[in-house]
């Protein structure tokens, strides 16, 4: 049956409308769970708040387990799902830059827009910074192009590259997630409580 759009159950013309609706819900949930506060987001690096780690890890797990159950029951064909292409070095260097920006600015791109929506000045500065970064990247694209398009590994997943059984991989991944939650809780309790 699914995925709904590639199989023509929902026409392609609805793409943008669905994207807007999902975006609104996503933004609402981000804001409602306090993700528009740079202090809360940066807490994961200083060890006083691990909400970011927990929320995104749990979201990934719920989606992953849910998808594979739906695949098992025949509602969704997992082989038809879009897998983002991997450009190895581009992803590593981009990840480092993004991480550095996350620590110093206290936002990731999605949450920064969320914080702009509720009028945070630091977020507005942050978004202007993003725009400047995009401008520099676009202007220097001819220099960065080999990095951007190099070391292309195709649309691979961890299951493909490690060659493991996906069901076992999910199980082990779940256990790793829960262990990381427990460890993060221990670290948080050791740290001095910070009110923000």
């Amino acid at each position: 049956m699914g995925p709904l759009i590639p199989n023509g159950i929902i026409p392609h013309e609805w793409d943008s409308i669905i994207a807007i609706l999902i975006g609104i819900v996503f933004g609402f949930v981000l804001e409602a769970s306090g993700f528009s506060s740079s202090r809360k987001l940066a807490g994961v690096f200083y060890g006083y708040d691990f909400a970011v780690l927990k929320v995104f890890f749990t979201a990934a797990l719920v989606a992953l387990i849910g998808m594979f159950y739906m695949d098992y029951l025949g509602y969704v064909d997992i082989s038809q799902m879009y897998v983002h292409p991997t450009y190895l070095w581009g992803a590593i260097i981009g990840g480092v830059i993004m991480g550095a920006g996350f620590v110093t600015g206290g936002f990731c791109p999605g949450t920064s827009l969320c914080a702009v929506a509720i009028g945070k000045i630091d977020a507005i500065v942050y978004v202007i910074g993003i725009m400047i970064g995009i401008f520099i990247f676009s202007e220097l694209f001819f220099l960065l192009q080999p990095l951007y398009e190099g070391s292309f590994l195709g649309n691979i997943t961890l299951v493909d590259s490690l060659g493991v059984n996906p069901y076992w991989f999910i199980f082990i991944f779940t256990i790793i997630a829960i262990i990381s939650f427990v460890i993060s809780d221990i670290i948080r309790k050791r740290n001095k409580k910070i009110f923000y």
Partner: protein
Amino acid sequence: MVKKKVAKVLAFRYMVLAGILIILAGGLVLLPKYEKHEGIKPEQLLSNVISPERYITTDYLADKLISQDPSYLLIDVRDEESYTTYSIPNAINIPLAKLLDEDSEMYLNQDQFNIVLFSNDNFSADQAWILCNRLDYKNLHVLKGGVNMWYNTIINPIKPTEDMPAEAFELFTFRKAASMYFGVAYPEQFKATVVKKVIPKKVITVKKKKKAPAEGGC
């Protein structure tokens, strides 16, 4: 009192959620695995099997070949030896054993051409037809009767007896004309060909003479 009980349960809420995640993930590992169907559903295959579009006759194919219809792609699923011995003109050879190879896929999995599968009779072509249909390849047909039928109807048509209906005679004239197109010579047109055949023979003899001195030189 109730509030205290609720608070006691809620104290373990993260443990419970973590437990649910582990149970669900473990469930995926423990669930019995089954082979998934690739390609079209059995009902669809069945409806394709009984569809009259499945077979095309040799007369229809001959008509399409003579009118040089470019939309027909002929695929001979017999082995290579039979293919080189005799095949329908312009056919491609994809032996049944190599049907699912990557090289064959680009011929079979497309929607530009009408594919006509044939073998000596229907049998191997039908097998190929089922396999390809199962993979949801489009526009597949089987030549009814295969090469044998082709030979008996188009290449060597049987002359109808005089008590047969007029359509049989019309069909015979069509088949006879088709066979001429595909290179069969009849006694009626023999005179014209005699003259032409003599000329190339002379050319061949000249060539032989040229070869002889070259051998001597060595």
